[in-house]
């Protein structure tokens, strides 16, 4: 069962992130929840690439052929981290602007377009 703990945590975090976005009453809070949602993909990718007894895929001190964890998922996660930071930066600047021109950061009050 423990072998699947990481996957369960990934799904758990994913659903909590979605819950946060759905119920949010503050745009800043919503952006943070999006970042939480993102971390679920880290947990999933990390668990997928892990190998029992493997070390980090850096052959500075260990000979080639030593069992290591999968380096590719780590490369994917690096890209993921950048994506998270940049999307968050862009969204936060939109929130600042929305607060400036609309005077609110509550998505309920910011609804100008509807129907």
């Amino acid at each position, binding site marked *: 069962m423990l072998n699947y703990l990481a996957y369960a945590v990934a799904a758990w975090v994913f659903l909590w992130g979605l819950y946060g976005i759905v119920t949010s009453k503050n745009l800043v809070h919503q952006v943070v929840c999006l970042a939480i949602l993102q*971390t679920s993909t880290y947990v999933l990718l990390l668990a997928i690439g*892990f190998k029992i007894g493997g070390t980090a895929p850096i052959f500075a001190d260990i000979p080639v052929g030593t069992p290591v964890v999968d380096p590719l998922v780590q490369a994917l*996660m690096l890209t993921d*981290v950048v994506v998270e*930071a940049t999307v968050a930066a862009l969204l936060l*600047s939109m929130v600042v602007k929305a*607060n400036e021109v609309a005077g609110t950061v509550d998505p309920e009050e910011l609804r100008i377009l509807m129907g």
Partner: protein
Amino acid sequence: MRLLQCVVLLLVAITAPGVVLSRDPKCQVVTLSFYGLICALMFFIFQAPDVALSQITIGAVMLPLMILLTLTKMRRQNLRREQEKKRR
């Protein structure tokens, strides 16, 4: 090692709802920063030092910092708006 992994995974599972449920953004900055550190710890334990390093810099420092700046900016905008209201 196995135990450590379980512990850190459970920590992630506990803190993530904590961040979501801290509804006040100011308080969320603190929890998010803590969560970022736990994620970085998880990366170390799962043998991903490269990602851990960028997670510390991004998830635990840069992202909370940007949120703080956002909150500061918004507080100033709101103060300014109130001042203008008073003047009228």
